[in-house]
C-alpha cells in the first residue's frame, strides 16, 4: 500500500535519513522503533511532505505521494503529530472538524464524528471546551480523533504514548488496535518499543537514519538485541547490533 524506497533527508548539514526503505500492506499495523534522534519523526514528516526529501520515492498504491502537505492528506495519508499538537485556540469540536477539512460529505462526516465519540467518550463530554484546557491524555485522544476525521486510508502516528501516564498509554493502545479493526492501516512510530511491538504486525528498527532490522513484530519482541537495546532487558552476552547501510 505505502512504499518508501531509498529515502534520503537532510536537516541543514545533518544526513537525517540515509536510504530508508519500507513497506506497509493494507490493514497492517507497522511500527518503527528506535531511540531519540534516530530519525523516526523525520521519516513520518518526509512522508507527510512537511520536510523535503533529497532523494528517494514514496508511493501509495503505486502512485507517487504529493510533495505538499495538504495534497498528501488529500491522498488519504494522515499524520497524528507528536507532542499533542492540538489547536489550543479552538474548541474540541472545531478541532475534530479541522480533521475533516478536505471532506464535504456532511452525512459521512457526522457519522465519523459519532464514531470518534464512541472511541473517546471523554471528548464528547468536552465538545465545547477549548482544546488548550484539556489534560495531556485528552489532547492525545483529540489528535487521534482529529486524524480519524480525515477518514484516512493510512494513519501515521508519531509517539502516541509520549508523556502519558501508564493507564492512558493502555487506553491509547487499545484504541490503536480498534482503529485497525475498523479498517485503517497504521504506521506507528514509537520509543515505547514494548507497547509498539505488542500491537504491531511487523516492525522496523531505525538507528541513526538507517533501517537496521526488520521482521514480524512478535519475533522482534523475543530478539536478543532488541530486548537489550530497546526493551531494557539485561543479559550477560551482548547481541550484535545492526549495521547502517547494510540492510
Amino acid at each position, binding site marked *: 500500500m505505502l512504499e518508501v524506497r531509498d529515502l534520503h533527508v537532510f536537516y541543514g548539514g545533518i544526513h537525517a535519513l540515509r536510504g530508508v526503505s519500507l513497506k506497509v500492506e493494507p490493514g497492517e499495523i507497522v511500527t518503527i522503533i528506535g531511540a531519540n534522534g534516530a530519525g523516526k519523526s523525520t521519516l513520518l514528516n518526509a512522508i507527510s511532505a512537511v520536510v523535503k526529501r533529497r532523494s528517494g520515492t514514496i508511493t501509495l498504491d503505486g502512485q507517487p505521494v504529493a510533495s505538499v502537505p*495538504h495534497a498528501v492528506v488529500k491522498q488519504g495519508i494522515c499524520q497524528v503529530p507528536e507532542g*499533542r499538537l492540538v489547536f489550543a485556540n*479552538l474548541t474540541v469540536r*472545531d478541532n475534530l472538524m*479541522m480533521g475533516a477539512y478536505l471532506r464535504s460529505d456532511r452525512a459521512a462526516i457526522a457519522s465519523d464524528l459519532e464514531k470518534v465519540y464512541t472511541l473517546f467518550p471523554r471528548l464528547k463530554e468536552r465538545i465545547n471546551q477549548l482544546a488548550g*484546557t484539556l489534560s*495531556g491524555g485528552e*489532547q492525545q485522544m483529540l489528535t487521534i480523533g482529529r486524524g480519524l476525521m480525515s477518514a484516512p486510508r493510512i494513519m501515521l502516528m508519531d509517539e502516541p504514548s509520549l508523556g502519558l501516564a501508564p493507564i492512558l498509554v493502555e487506553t491509547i493502545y487499545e484504541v490503536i488496535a480498534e482503529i485497525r479493526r475498523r479498517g485503517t492501516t497504521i504506521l506507528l512510530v514509537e520509543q515505547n518499543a514494548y507497547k509498539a511491538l505488542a500491537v504491531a504486525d511487523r516492525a522496523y528498527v531505525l538507528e541513526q537514519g538507517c533501517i537496521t532490522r526488520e521482521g514480524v513484530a512478535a519475533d522482534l519482541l523475543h530478539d536478543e538485541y532488541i530486548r537489550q537495546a530497546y526493551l531494557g532487558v539485561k543479559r550477560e552476552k551482548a547481541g550484535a547490533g545492526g549495521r547502517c547501510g547494510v540492510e
Partner: protein
Amino acid sequence: MVQFFQQLINGVSIGSVYSLMAVGYSLVYSIMNFSNFAHGGVIMVGSYIGFYLLTSAKVPFPAALLGAAAGAGVLAIIVERIAYSPLRHRSAPFLYFIISAMGASMFIENFVVATIGPTFKTYPAVFSRWPIEIGPFYIGRIDVLIFVSAAMCLLGLVYFIDRTKLGKAVQATSFNHRAASLMGVNTGFVITLVFAIGGLLAGIAGVLFGMKYTVYPQMGAITIKSFIAAVFGGLGSLPGAVIGSLLLGIIETLVSGYFSSQYRDLISFTLLIAVLIFRPIGLMGKVTEEKA
C-alpha cells in the same frame, strides 16, 4: 455634558477607522507573528485609488469604495509575494520580516511621492457637509458612514473567522502552521487570504480616513495609531483590536477636546508604554498557552 457626548461621538468615529486598520494589522500578526509595517502604505494607496475613482473616473461612491478595497487587497497580496513569501520559504528569522516590511513601506510611500506627487489632496464632497442634528448633538454624515461601514466590515469579518470552515482554517493556521497543513489546509493560500482581507479593510479605511481628513503620501503613518490600538487591545486578538481602537479614538478626542490636541499623541504613546509595562499581552491578548 453635551460637549462630552459630542466628543464621544467623534471619538467613536475616528476609533472605527483605527479599528479597520488595526484588525488587518492584527490578523497578519496573528498568522505571521510579525508587525506588517507596510500596512500603512496599503491604506494610503487605497485612499488614492478611491480619490482618483471619484475625481477622474467619476464613478459613484460605493463603486469607488469597492474599487479602493479591491486595489488595496491586490497590493497587499503583491507585497506578501515580493517582500515576505521568499523569506517564509527560507524560514528566515523574524527580524528579516520586519526589515523587509519597512523597506516595502518606504518603497510604496516614495513611489507615490515620485509618481503622483507630495501634495495633499482633498476628497470631493460626496455627502452634504451639514451634520445631522439629533437633539442637542451634531453627527457628521461622514461619521455615520464611517461607523456603519466599519461595523459592517467587522461583523462580516467576525462571521467569516468564527463561522466558516475557511475562517477556522485561518485560526488553526494562526495557532500552528504545521498542524494546520497536516489537516489538509493549504497554509500558503491561507496566508495570501489573510493579506487580502487585511488589504481590503485597509483600502476601505483609507477612503474613509481620506474623506474625513485628506490624502497624502505619508498618511500611512497613521497606522502607528492602529498599531498602538492593536497592542493596547492585545496583538493578534480581533476583538482586542476593535476595543483598543475605539478606546484610543475616544481617549484622543477627549484629550484634544478638554486639554489640547498637542497632548493627543503624547497621551496615546504614554498609554502604549503603560500597557507594555503593566499588561504586555494587552486587554484581550491571546493567552493560548497549552496546558501541558
